[in-house]
């Protein structure tokens, strides 16, 4: 039986420091985060984890106190997210979420956090300087930065089985996950416009790298959870999305496919030949006619292979339900219906997905300029449109302009997005982490995905392992939080049982 698909999205934002004589992206990223975190910053605990004695609960492990990092810019937020500097980019990792809609919500909350960070940084900078961030994945000059998805996966599933099924999945899901890009990079064949930002950067089928020779399936094995039970599948092949529908579909459909793989439900060989060439060919063809060679089906288009995945998913939903991949059947049905609508539109009249898929929305915008101004595809104005679409400043973001003009379909309530900047999801251990930070920021010495270190006023510091991502939810710990008023009492209660 598939394990619950606890998911998270990590986004590296593009960053520009305008007006500075020698702009330094690391400094700019640090300013954003420091500016945002007004309360005492909580250091991220880099110490390698060893599993706690009771790997499924919150039992105290009583080990040595960890090294506390104070100089690195690394913040844990009260919504359970991590906000830090990574490779000269500001990076926001959502808290662990238990369904695709929740993941979409916390991903969007990240954009709002970055927007507020820019306002905060403006106050720290000299007159005439400004930091601007972009939620995209490439500078158009061969430099790429990622938007990674993470999914909880059963450790018992052989990795080779994941690889076999995931490669065709990742190659073909691009047709709805792509954010669109003018031209090509990194030695790929020239094109005017392509579906994804990232496809040009993938050079291997499977591997550990993330910064060069990027593989379609990444093998990083760092579960941030009980390693006997779980993997964390680290997906590096996707684009950062602005459209809520695109994020929701990307996460929801991938979670369902993973659940089907775990349950051995994919009953035919969907592996494709020459995946590295295929991922580019699919991305480079916005007419969606590019074909891939599928072992069990022969040559078919991405849409045709996607229909096969959807057919299996509908059958899986009927037989098993979608609680494991999507949190509940209602959201599961939302994913399936959206998926079907999108495939139908893609094979008939893709441009009707304006406002749902980023690559279509951006293409329509660019084409409108081409038509009005008679621009060539090489005109820098089109590249500007393509980048500024992802600008995170509400007043300058072209995506936000389209939202305000009613051109973009929203799935989220904006009040809920604002609340998610501060409040953690109810459904995972992020609730425990975020609540501890909100209540006792001064006592949280360090936090990590799978542990929290509290200073209860006496030595040693107390480490609370959180090896089970579904535990520590509101349902699980709300009563406990209501009954304690200090970190010391919390630790006493956790260790008493």
């Amino acid at each position, binding site marked *: 039986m598939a394990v619950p698909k606890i998911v998270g999205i990590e986004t590296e934002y593009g960053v520009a420091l305008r007006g500075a004589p020698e702009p330094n992206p690391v400094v700019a990223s640090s300013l954003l985060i420091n500016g945002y975190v007004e309360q005492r910053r909580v250091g991220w605990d880099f110490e390698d984890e060893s599993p706690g004695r009771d790997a499924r609960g919150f039992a105290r492990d009583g080990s040595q106190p960890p090294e506390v990092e104070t100089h690195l810019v690394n913040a844990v937020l009260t919504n359970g997210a991590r906000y830090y500097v990574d490779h000269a980019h500001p990076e926001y990792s959502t808290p662990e979420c238990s369904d695709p809609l929740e993941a979409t919500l916390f991903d969007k909350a990240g954009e709002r956090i970055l927007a507020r960070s820019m306002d905060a940084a403006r106050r720290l900078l000299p007159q005439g300087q400004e930091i601007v961030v972009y939620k995209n994945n*490439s*500078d158009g000059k061969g430099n790429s*930065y990622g938007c990674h998805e993470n999914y909880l996966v059963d450790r018992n599933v052989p990795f080779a089985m994941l690889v076999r099924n995931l490669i065709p999945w990742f190659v073909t899901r691009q047709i709805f996950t792509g954010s669109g890009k003018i031209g090509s990079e990194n030695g790929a064949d020239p094109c005017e416009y392509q579906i994804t930002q990232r496809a040009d950067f993938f050079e291997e089928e499977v591997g550990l790298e*993330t910064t060069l020779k990027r593989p379609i399936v990444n093998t990083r094995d760092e579960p941030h959870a009980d390693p006997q039970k779980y993997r964390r599948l680290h997906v590096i092949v996707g684009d950062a999305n602005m459209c809520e529908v695109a994020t929701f579909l990307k996460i929801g459909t991938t979670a369902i496919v993973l659940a089907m793989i775990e349950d051995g439900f994919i009953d035919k060989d969907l592996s494709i030949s020459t995946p590295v060439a295929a991922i580019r*060919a699919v991305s480079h063809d916005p*007419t969606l006619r590019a074909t891939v060679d599928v072992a069990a089906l022969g040559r078919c288009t991405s849409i045709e292979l996607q229909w096969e995945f959807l057919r299996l998913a509908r059958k899986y939903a009927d037989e098993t339900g979608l609680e494991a991949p999507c949190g509940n059947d209602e959201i599961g049905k939302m994913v399936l219906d959206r998926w079907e609508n999108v495939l139908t539109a893609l094979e008939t009249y893709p441009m009707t997905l304006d406002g749902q898929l980023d690559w279509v929305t951006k293409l329509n915008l660019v084409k409108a300029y081409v038509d009005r101004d008679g621009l060539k595809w090489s005109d820098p104005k089109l590249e500007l449109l393509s980048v500024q679409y992802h600008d995170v400043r509400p007043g300058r973001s072209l995506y936000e302009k389209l939202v305000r003009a009613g051109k973009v379909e929203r799935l989220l309530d904006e009040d809920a997005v604002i609340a998610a900047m501060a409040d953690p999801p109810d459904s995972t251990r992020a609730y425990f982490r975020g609540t501890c930070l909100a209540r006792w920021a001064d006592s949280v010495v360090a936090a990590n995905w799978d542990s929290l270190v509290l200073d209860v006023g006496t030595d040693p510091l107390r480490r609370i392992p959180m090896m089970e991502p579904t535990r520590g939810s509101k349902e699980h710990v709300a009563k406990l939080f209501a009954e304690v008023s200090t970190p010391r009492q919390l630790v006493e209660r956790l260790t008493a049982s």
Partner: protein
Amino acid sequence: MPEREQKKKQPPGKREEEVVEEAPATSERGEKLKEDIDDLLDEIDSVLEDNAEEFVRSYVQKGGE
């Protein structure tokens, strides 16, 4: 749009048919749509960075991940 030479597996005509169904609009509706788009582009013009060439040249990122 980049047109690549691909064998088309779709049943012939399906794509075209659907397009035809979607496309016709009364000229009045067409005018209104065009006005809407023009208004939107004007609005976008007002927030677009001033110098596209300079913007594109200076937007350089370090690789990440």
